[in-house]
């Protein structure tokens, strides 16, 4: 059917990414890692989508992000297969 191409269970425009959770985000999500499918394009939108899903209490403004092991910007787009980590404010030391 036109416009509803399915590739291995994924809809057109859908990306599959690995999310790893630390600190309060992990506790609230109840797991430390998961693979999710999403149609949003920016990391900011992905955070908001997952925040709603997991009931995260940290607002977007307090969170940084890492993509494939390096810091990224929330306004950045992400790609299929990326490993994404949302970072609560650091509290080392």
């Amino acid at each position, binding site marked *: 059917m036109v416009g509803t191409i399915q590739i291995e269970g994924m809809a057109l425009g859908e990306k599959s990414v690995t999310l790893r959770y630390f600190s309060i985000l992990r506790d609230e999500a109840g797991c430390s890692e998961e693979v999710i499918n999403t149609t949003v394009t920016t990391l900011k939108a992905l955070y908001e989508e997952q925040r709603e899903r997991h009931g995260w209490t940290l607002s977007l403004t307090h969170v940084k992000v890492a993509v494939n092991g390096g810091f990224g910007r929330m306004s950045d787009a992400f790609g299929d297969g990326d490993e994404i980590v949302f970072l609560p404010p*650091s*509290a080392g*030391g």
Partner: protein
Amino acid sequence: MHSAMGMKLFFYPQVQVAKLFKISDQPIYSAEIRAHFENPAAGACVIFEGWVRNHDDGREVWSLEYEAYSELAEAEGERVLAEAQAQFDILEVKCIHRVGELEIGDCAVWIGVLGAHRKAAFEACQYVIDTLKERVPIWKKEHFKDGSTEWLPGAG
């Protein structure tokens, strides 16, 4: 090459630069680290140890749980140390940060700076701890004596 050095190059074809920032799940023994941290050109050695204290914000603390996004924490920690090395007139700088369950009095972070003179060594040490707290992805969860827990800083 037929010298000992040649053999070494044969067995270790890739020259590895020693990591100066480490995340460790093992106890930090200050005296042990300090014993291997020396330089004949140094006239000043500044060491900062961050310890787990028994109170925070008026509440009695039972223990602290540290965790890190280790891959990124070590990479960013290396950058912080490289910045300290570049910005201050020091000889060497090194840092170890604990993860895991820590008790009162345990050392959570160890920072050492060697310099020819004290001023730059003090300043570099201060820069490393301040910047580390801000940028390196490490988190701590307070376990209070009343049984409650809280990730720091609190939810925003």
